[in-house]
């Protein structure tokens, strides 16, 4: 196993798929956000120049062009940059990409990948910090992947590119520079299979993307206080591994869901509602959400940390449930 960064793993997946399949195209967007790491992408540029398209600032049209091309089997990866920009293409992603397969009764499919960097990025302020995952999950017909580590980033990106559905790949700029072991060779990680990133018998913490990192940190702290947390990394929201969530809650009887989005109608709401409906009896105590606070994102990095679902808040929530 090689050790590489999240950014490197992501680019490796894209490179492999572009090598394997001449139908994979890449829009030259902001794959790594504004925090550097673009050197990794530069290499793809040289190797696949004729399948790389430099975009104007036209999120809506490009998302729809990727959608139309996908109907003919072209798999376009469109890195939209900051997830906030995706709202400019909301109609095209929800209504065209997300509905075409159903609307055509299965005759056409839309294998496009919309890549975004979401969440609190350190000074992104009010308009550069969106977490669109809950809004997207409310729209049927779209797959959603959210990797938390380099190995998953690679395997999930490969699956996203090969998937015949429109996939929103919700990435995190703060993960880009983090390193981790990545299996050798090519491998896909199927959507819908959560990964138990840590075993524990006392409490279940469900999370995705950067919040898995925070949850693992929290688990260490909790372990010091005698609480063993089980971390369920969802990896994909659509499809969802309900099984993994319920079986972990069945084991621990306690549930914290950590989610970047503001609380109302969030991923955390959904996981809790699912458990309440299908496994209320498993719960020894009421479940708890740890979301971004229900406010906008102030520019200041300290306040940003305060509103975010951070390690401290996870620890606190878990301790309360276990007390």
């Amino acid at each position, binding site marked *: 196993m090689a050790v590489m960064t999240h950014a490197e793993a992501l680019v490796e997946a894209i490179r492999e798929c572009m090598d394997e399949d001449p139908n994979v195209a890449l829009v030259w967007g902001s794959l790594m956000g504004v925090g550097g790491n673009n050197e990794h992408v530069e290499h793809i540029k040289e190797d696949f120049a004729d399948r790389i398209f430099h975009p*104007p600032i036209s999120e809506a049209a*490009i998302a*729809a062009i990727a*959608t*139309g091309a996908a*109907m003919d089997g072209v798999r376009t990866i469109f890195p939209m940059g900051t997830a906030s920009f995706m709202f400019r293409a909301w*109609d095209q992603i929800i209504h065209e990409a997300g509905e075409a*397969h159903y609307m055509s009764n299965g005759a*056409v499919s839309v294998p496009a990948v919309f890549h975004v960097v979401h969440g609190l990025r350190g000074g992104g302020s009010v308009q550069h910090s969106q977490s669109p995952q809950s809004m997207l999950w409310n729209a049927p*017909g779209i797959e959603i992947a959210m990797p938390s580590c380099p190995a998953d980033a690679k395997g999930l990106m490969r699956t996203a590119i090969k998937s015949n559905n429109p996939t929103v790949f919700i990435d995190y700029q703060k993960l880009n520079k983090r390193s981790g072991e990545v299996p050798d060779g090519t491998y896909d990680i199927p959507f819908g299979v959560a990964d138990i990133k840590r075993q524990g018998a006392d409490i279940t913490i469900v999370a995705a993307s950067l919040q898995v990192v925070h949850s693992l940190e929290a688990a260490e702290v909790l372990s010091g206080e005698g609480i063993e947390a089980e971390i369920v990394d969802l990896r994909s929201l659509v499809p969802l591994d309900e099984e993994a969530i319920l079986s972990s809650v069945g084991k621990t009887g306690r549930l914290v869901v950590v989610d970047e989005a503001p609380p109302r109608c969030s991923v955390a709401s959904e996981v809790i509602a699912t458990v309440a409906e299908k496994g209320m009896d498993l719960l020894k105590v009421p479940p708890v959400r740890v979301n971004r606070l229900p406010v906008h994102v102030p520019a200041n990095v300290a306040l940003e940390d305060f509103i975010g679902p951070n390690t401290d808040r996870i620890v606190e929530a878990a301790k309360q449930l276990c007390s």
Partner: protein
Amino acid sequence: MDKLRLLDIFRQMMLIRRFEEAVYDFHEQKLFGGHYHLYIGQEATGAAVMASLRSEDRVFSTHRNHGHAIARGVDPKNALAEILNRVDGTNGGRGGTFHLASADAGMPHTSALVGGAVPLAAGAGFAAKLQKSGGIGVSMFGDGCFEEGVVFETLNLALLWKLPVIFVCENNTPGAILKSQGGNNTSNLPEGRVIQIPQALGMECHEVDGGDAVAVDELFADCATRVRATGHPVFIEALTERWPGNYFSFPSMVTGLTQVSMAWDGSAISGEHEDWFKTHGPVLRFARDLIVNGVGTFGDIVGIDVDVTETITSAKEFALSSPLPETDSVYSHLLAGES
């Protein structure tokens, strides 16, 4: 002048007209819900455009799509079944009037959102370019689409990325019913001239009388050849007099069922819509031209009408006898499986 080609275009136009009359009839009988739009008055454009297309080309349409689907070669049986939301419909009954499409026929998708299909067609051009398929993307859309920014973005992208796409704007605002009379809210551009937008971007642009099948055919065939060769986009504005029955949301058959004999028997024409029958209605106009130019005889015209009327009659029966989808079918095809 290729007589067979022209008669074939006329046949498509006649087929569209009889199809739309059938749709109207079905709606009057409350056989399908919701509001809907007819292509009456624009047949010349749709039929002539599709005449130059090949299987590797891709057409994307709008809420006013029936004529495009028929001319593209979708079987009227399946199109009518779709409008009645039956299992044999082009979309298995799910799309209805708003979404007639058929990947097999080279018309993968129809968006009911104003301007929605314009970038999708550019995407087909993108695919054709990447796959070197030799195909082109064709976007059929209304003049109202120019009010939506995504259409502007798409024109820009098609030029920047050199995509083989033909943008066919069917401008049916000339003669439009006033907004105060419930007319559609189209061509709300201050100059009222949509062609100036792609022109300003430096796109090759053409204007054509969309009610003149021959003119559209010649122009489009020429553009298609060039787009295939150069890979660069082209814009066509087809101006058509709006059919008087084209009200907002619900059409009204104010001009009655089409009588082809009006093409040679002026005495049958009278009343409020005289001008429509004599000058604008593209089916009668083309019938008249075909006869005058010696392309077809009265007999040919009547023969074609009898033929397509029969096609539509049996298509209606087919559609009516096609079952509704099972309720459980709503779960299928939400997500695609593996390839």
